[in-house]
């Protein structure tokens, strides 16, 4: 089985695979293959579905695919934009001048490395396997999509035309791309916790392991038909009478809770920055942070509304909820500061918007605008409290508040989804009510999924860091930390204004 070799000398292996692709495909034909196959057939059927075709032979399916694909490709672009420039600016502005490139480079490098990993094995581990098939594994994906087999189009000698694997309404490649952007930004969020002191090499090792061992399983559980997917037959708590699992429209658990709690563990294990508490460490460029926040807001439209995986009215609902929550969060945090400290800060407004966005993420496709406003307020206030009181109380150095915003906001969001979700927006439970307010009973599921994510992400991260600390070391030397990551890790300076 070539895949073992792959992880080792991937490039070489990749080349081999490429040359011997046909054979490999042959070997790999497994029942798990069927979905893309059937999809391929579907697409074939479609093209022959003349009932709906105009004189020139365009089918309704092609037409719909054009629209859905347009939105999904746009969404993928928006989500990539969230990591950089978005997050790169948001985080980059918050650190001291001497570390700005360090933070930005983490974003750019992850954009590169995690994309490659996603293509080689990540997507397969997360989304491989068909819940309907006999040998489906609810804990982790399978090998069907390794190296993008059954994702990329492949030439069918029989029909003498290409088979194009589909994922429902969109090409599977589009689905892979869109989901891949999440695989980039999630670990990038964690960087906020160990900013200004993490060794670049260790950060890379950590991300490879974390992405493979934390993100991929979680994504499989929640979106791949696994143990947390709402309504999946494999879902915890699933029974004839109850759907089981939890609602997570765009990644409250998979993205925000997982990164947030992992961030907390990082902050605790790597320890405080040199001079933390004594020296002032103000953001060196709040204008970057504000620009970054605005880009995150815009990009989040792709993140949430794109998670509908097509361009229909639910996508519109998700975008509306996203926008209202961000807005309410921004106002809430700024006003909270105004009341408690006498001044609304620009950073507060931006942080509030992000907090609102984090909070609405799991609920975005399930709630109406007014609920979104309330969730935005809740997220804004909860995170504001976490970043101020809690953090200063326990004196851990979550440098850029990755936990304070994503961990706390994600948790609040996952739980409130159980309160505000309504079948009016997405009727995912056969007409049965969803959230508490409309008399639904999904709340317990939300709480369970949240707890599981906390535990799973927290424990695995803890173990990974302990191992890496013993082997590579987490932190740069004191010397290097004083000099700054830009010079010590990358041999560059951010600004040379002379």
């Amino acid at each position, binding site marked *: 089985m070539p895949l073992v070799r792959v992880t080792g000398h991937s490039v070489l292996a990749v080349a081999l695979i490429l040359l011997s692709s046909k054979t490999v495909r042959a070997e790999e034909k497994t029942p798990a293959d069927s979905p893309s196959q059937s999809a391929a057939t579907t697409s074939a059927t479609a093209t022959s579905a003349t009932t709906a075709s105009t004189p020139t032979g365009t089918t309704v399916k092609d037409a719909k695919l054009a629209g859905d694909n347009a939105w999904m490709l746009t969404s993928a672009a928006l989500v990539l934009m969230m990591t950089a420039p978005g997050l790169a600016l948001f985080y980059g502005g918050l650190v001291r001048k001497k570390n700005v490139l360090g933070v930005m480079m983490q974003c750019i490098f992850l954009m590169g490395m995690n994309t490659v990993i996603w293509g080689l094995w990540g997507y397969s581990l997360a989304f491989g396997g068909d819940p309907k098939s006999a040998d489906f594994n609810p804990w982790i994906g399978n090998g069907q999509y390794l190296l993008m087999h059954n994702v990329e189009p492949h030439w069918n000698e029989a029909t003498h035309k290409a088979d194009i694997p589909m994922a429902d309404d969109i090409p599977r490649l589009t689905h892979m791309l869109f989901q891949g952007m999440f695989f980039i930004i999630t670990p990038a969020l964690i960087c906020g916790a160990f900013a200004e002191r993490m060794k670049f090499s260790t950060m890379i090792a950590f991300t490879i392991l974390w992405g493979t061992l934390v993100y991929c399983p979680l994504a499989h559980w929640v979106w791949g038909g696994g143990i947390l997917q709402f309504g999946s037959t494999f879902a915890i708590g699933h029974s004839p009478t109850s759907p089981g699992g939890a609602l997570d429209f765009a990644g409250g658990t998979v993205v925000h809770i997982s990164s947030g709690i992992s961030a907390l563990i990082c902050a605790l294990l790597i320890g405080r920055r040199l001079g933390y508490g004594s020296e*002032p460490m*103000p*953001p060196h460029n709040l204008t970057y942070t504000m620009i970054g926040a605005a880009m995150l807001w815009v990009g989040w439209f792709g993140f949430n509304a794109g998670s509908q995986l097509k361009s229909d009215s639910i996508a519109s609902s998700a975008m509306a909820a996203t926008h209202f929550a961000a807005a309410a969060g921004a106002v809430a945090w700024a006003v909270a*500061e105004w009341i408690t*400290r006498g*001044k609304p*800060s620009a*950073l*507060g407004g931006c*942080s509030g918007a992000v907090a609102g966005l984090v909070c609405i993420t799991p609920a975005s496709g399930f709630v109406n605008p007014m609920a979104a406003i309330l969730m935005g307020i809740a997220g804004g206030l909860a995170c504001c409290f976490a*970043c*101020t*009181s809690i*953090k*200063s109380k326990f004196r851990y150095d979550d440098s850029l*508040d990755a936990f*304070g915003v994503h961990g706390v906001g994600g948790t609040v969001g996952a739980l409130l989804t159980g309160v505000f979700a309504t079948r009016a927006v997405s009727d995912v439970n056969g007409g049965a009510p969803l959230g508490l307010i409309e008399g639904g009973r999904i709340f317990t599921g939300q709480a369970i999924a949240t707890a599981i994510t906390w535990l799973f992400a927290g424990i695995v991260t803890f173990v990974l860091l302990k191992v890496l600390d013993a082997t590579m070391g987490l932190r740069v030397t004191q010397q290097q930390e004083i000099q700054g990551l830009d010079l010590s890790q990358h041999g560059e300076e951010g600004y040379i204004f002379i």
Partner: protein
Amino acid sequence: MKKIEAVIRHFKLEDIKNALMELGVQGMTISEVRGFGRQKGHTEMYRGTEYAVDFVPKVKLEIVVSNAQLASVIDTIMRTAQTGQIGDGKIFVIDLANTIRIRTGETGEDAI
């Protein structure tokens, strides 16, 4: 020859420069500095942490003058830089061993 170093408020710079030019001062050198003194700084707040910024942005003037000009220049700066509020700044006077104009090699007062 004396070197006058004056620490002043930013928004006074323009006035002082003009006043000194009228007085016939031929040149000066300015730089950005931050000052600490009786004038209190301010507190800034970033997420959780609030902290005091004790250093206030100021402008530092360096003007080399002949002993003859000294008094009038100091006087002019005093008048134009003064607001009466804490933080107006200071004037320091330093003896100069020599001055040279790089372009011409002139030295002493001719070089000013």
